[in-house]
């Protein structure tokens, strides 16, 4: 007979899985606005978008990161495996350091992006937006490497915002002031182990805390204890506010800003790292990696398209807008994601734009449809390409952080 564990492992009533923080998340959610993130019940908004946004940008925000896909990679060939997987050279990644990576299929089209944590010598954690086990196992052929999915075995909390360091220090983590961006430290809190990395998806000062699921609630309570003691404000944020800040910070979202290669049905609808602005990750001098030849070939040819950061004139939301090389000009692309930036008072967007003869269009105009009291109107807005992230505050990387 099938093992009881196997049979008990599945309940069709539970459509969305509860994370180890769920009891507190549920309690904090005032509007009960849920969505699915990798099959986990995740808050889109807890209270209001505005308050959550400003928690990230001006005080301290907390978000349940558990649903992020996590894979533990170990074994003698772990480094060989990872370096062959991703387009970036990670051979110099030291233990207790994190790096941002992307990986491609054989055709040099991006499957996903993510981060690699060098947990301890020879042991790594790969975090990704989408499920990757199948691709990781395909990539492990002929290598002595152990790949374990540990999404549900590791609870994670993002603590982000200008007072994040102060809040965590007040919560009892005393080793943070010297932790540099992309660094990892381990500490004990009330007798359980917490791994802290100075990483995030907000473009601001911030940390990600990793614990065993059994200690998840204790970790949460320690962080929110700071608020209860009246020291600093700490707020939960949902995916809605995160979407605003990640666009400000210029981070891309697989599946939204570009179609991931594995799910692409129509030829030509997938994207290479160069095309989505990740060309800086690609290292042709490192040992072989999947997609290298295809990327080398692309590299030698005129640019066809790019995912660009656009500041869109005015305050109308350019949702799904077509882009033109002049008012009523030739159609050259579409908006992929956009936000109103409360801190910059600007409309920001990520847009997929076709180049002509390898050259970026001289002008970019968005045709925006918007409605006022159920009446639809159309307008044109000039767009300006932003090379740098829209929001890049020095406090993101200052070590030690200010007011820590």
């Amino acid at each position: 007979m099938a093992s009881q564990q196997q049979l008990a492992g599945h309940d069709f009533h539970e459509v969305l899985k509860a994370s180890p923080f769920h009891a507190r998340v549920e309690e904090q959610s005032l509007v009960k606005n849920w969505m699915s993130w990798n099959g986990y019940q995740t808050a889109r908004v807890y209270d209001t978008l505005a308050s959550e946004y400003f928690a990230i940008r001006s005080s301290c925000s907390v978000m349940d990161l558990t649903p992020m896909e996590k894979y533990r990679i170990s074994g003698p060939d772990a480094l060989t495996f990872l370096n062959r997987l991703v387009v970036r050279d990670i051979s110099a990644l030291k233990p207790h350091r994190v790096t941002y990576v992307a990986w491609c299929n054989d055709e040099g089209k991006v499957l996903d992006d993510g981060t690699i944590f060098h947990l301890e010598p020879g042991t790594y954690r790969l975090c990704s937006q989408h499920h990757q086990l199948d691709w990781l196992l395909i990539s492990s052929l002929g290598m002595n490497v152990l790949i374990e999915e540990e999404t549900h075995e590791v609870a994670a909390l993002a603590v982000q915002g200008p007072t994040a360091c102060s809040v965590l220090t007040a919560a009892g983590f005393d080793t943070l002031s010297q932790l540099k961006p992309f660094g990892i430290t381990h500490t004990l809190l009330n007798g359980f182990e917490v791994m802290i990395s100075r990483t995030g998806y907000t473009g601001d000062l911030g940390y990600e805390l990793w614990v065993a699921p059994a200690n998840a609630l204790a970790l949460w309570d320690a962080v929110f204890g700071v608020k209860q003691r009246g020291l600093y404000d700490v707020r939960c944020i949902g995916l809605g506010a995160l979407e605003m800040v990640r666009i400000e910070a210029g981070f891309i979202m697989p599946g939204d800003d570009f179609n991931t290669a594995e799910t692409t049905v129509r030829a030509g609808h997938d994207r290479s790292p160069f095309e989505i602005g990740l060309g800086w990750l690609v290292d042709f001098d490192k040992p072989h990696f999947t997609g290298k030849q295809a990327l080398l070939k692309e590299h030698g040819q005129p640019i066809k398209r790019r995912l660009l950061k656009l500041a869109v004139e005015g305050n109308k939301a350019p949702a799904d807008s077509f882009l033109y090389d002049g008012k009523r000009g030739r159609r050259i692309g579409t908006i992929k994601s956009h936000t109103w930036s409360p801190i910059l008072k600007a409309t920001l967007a990520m847009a997929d734009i076709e180049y002509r003869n390898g050259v970026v269009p001289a002008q970019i105009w968005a045709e925006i449809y918007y409605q006022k009291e159920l009446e639809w109107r159309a307008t044109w807005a000039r767009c300006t390409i932003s090379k740098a992230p829209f929001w890049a505050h020095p406090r993101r990387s200052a070590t030690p952080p200010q007011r820590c």
Partner: protein
Amino acid sequence: MKKYDAIVIGAGHNGLTNAAFLAKAGLDVLVLEKNEYIGGATVSRELYEGWKYSNCSYVCSLFRPEIYQALDLGRHGLEVVPLQGSTTFKQNGDYFGSYHQPTVRRREIARHSKRDADASVRFDADLMKWCRLIRGFLLRTPPDPSSLKMRDVMEFAHLLKQFYSLSESQIYEFIRFFTMSIAEYLEEYFESDVILAHFSGGSIIGTGLGVYSPGTAYVLLHHAMGDIDGNVGSWGFARGGMGSVANAIASSFKALGGEVRTAAEVQQIIVKGRTAMGVVLTSGEEISARVVVSNLDAKRTFLGVMDRNDLPEALLHRAEHFKIRGSSGKLNIALDGMPVFPALPPGSPLTLGHMHFTDTLERLERAYDDWKDDRWSADPYVDTLIPTQYDPTMAPPGKHMMSVFVQYCPVEVEGGWTAAKRDAFGAAVIDQIAQHSPNFKQLILHAEVRTPREIEAETGLTQGNIFQGELTLDQLMFNRPFPGYAQYRGPVKNMYMCSSSTHPGGGVMGAPGANAAREILRDLGRTDTTPRDFGDD
């Protein structure tokens, strides 16, 4: 004597579809049906008092939405309700459920293999690539590759253009998909035995092939490319049973001025001077028409209702050797209540979908080995549905109707079929289900057991082949039914074919009927009333 514009022989769904499009173009059309009732293999029949059986075809998926829309079938009473998932029961008491809800389905696949849950993303995307390509061919007339006529060359160029919308590696992957076995194709994605078996089953339904036979991966598409409201690959029940499909098309046809005569079996197509002139019925009655369309399969058309002397020798040879081996059986069962399946969690929605009981590729393949040797499968693959959970029109309240499709069952067994052998075949199927449902046998009020022989006797499908001709490469596209005759035109003037023996083949799809109508209207110089593919860029 009245002369019709067109006579269609056989009131199956393709005959009716064909007739409806001809009538829509203003033609005076008569459909002749040998049975007392219409529908052919898309019928609902009361063979046990108070129960309606979809006693041949039993699910609706491939039926083209373009035809549905063009013939206004919704207003003519057709309602197709999507099924909810499918299940394969394992011999160890566990099960695999392909739930309707995507998150739950993913987690259920992961319960059997985490890797397979991820691989299914890759698999679904790949399958969709091939679906998109093939679907565009369904409502088109296949070009003749040996012809140098402008129309054929242009059509070939069109197909090549579609083909070349794929990237180079996709082209090779497509060829591989088209020529590989379903088992080996799936093994490039999945590792779990039950998942491999679950997704393979659809590829052998109705075929004379096993899961390891090259060419079966494509058949999967034949079952997966149907869609209901844009959900590609989903299946549906026709409310009131499959007879509702034929009834709705007939109703649309009649509203367009068409005429249907039942209990009117055609004896022969009258041919004079290499031109079809009409038909003569078994009653001796002669009916003339400008055009005669056969919805009978290719064997019955050329070896049954046509005079050999009117036909070219080469065509007769091909008709005689047309591959149309039946391989499927069917049980229709009236149940006193709802059977329980203890493997499923209480309240599981999975009983609302397909239920299968073969959990490994080896068991599927061994079921095929039995058929090759003219035996019914001792351990058969069955596709079970209980539509009465949704549909109150098919059984009294609280009672149920179970449709059981069985693969494999041969046309001929050693020593010939007898009533006792047929019952033994039925018992093997019932035992298969009863192994997973302890109260199943006690609930059986009536069971109709049909081997390919009974299917042939009722519907006229030669050898009981549900596709009116096997779906192998020698009988697909420009080879269907025969090379040189794939454009719906018969060997004599004014004679046409519209059955599933023609492109794109079997399944309750309506496409052969519509495609044939397009060619007839073209020859008659009439406006084309048939729909174009909705398209999917």
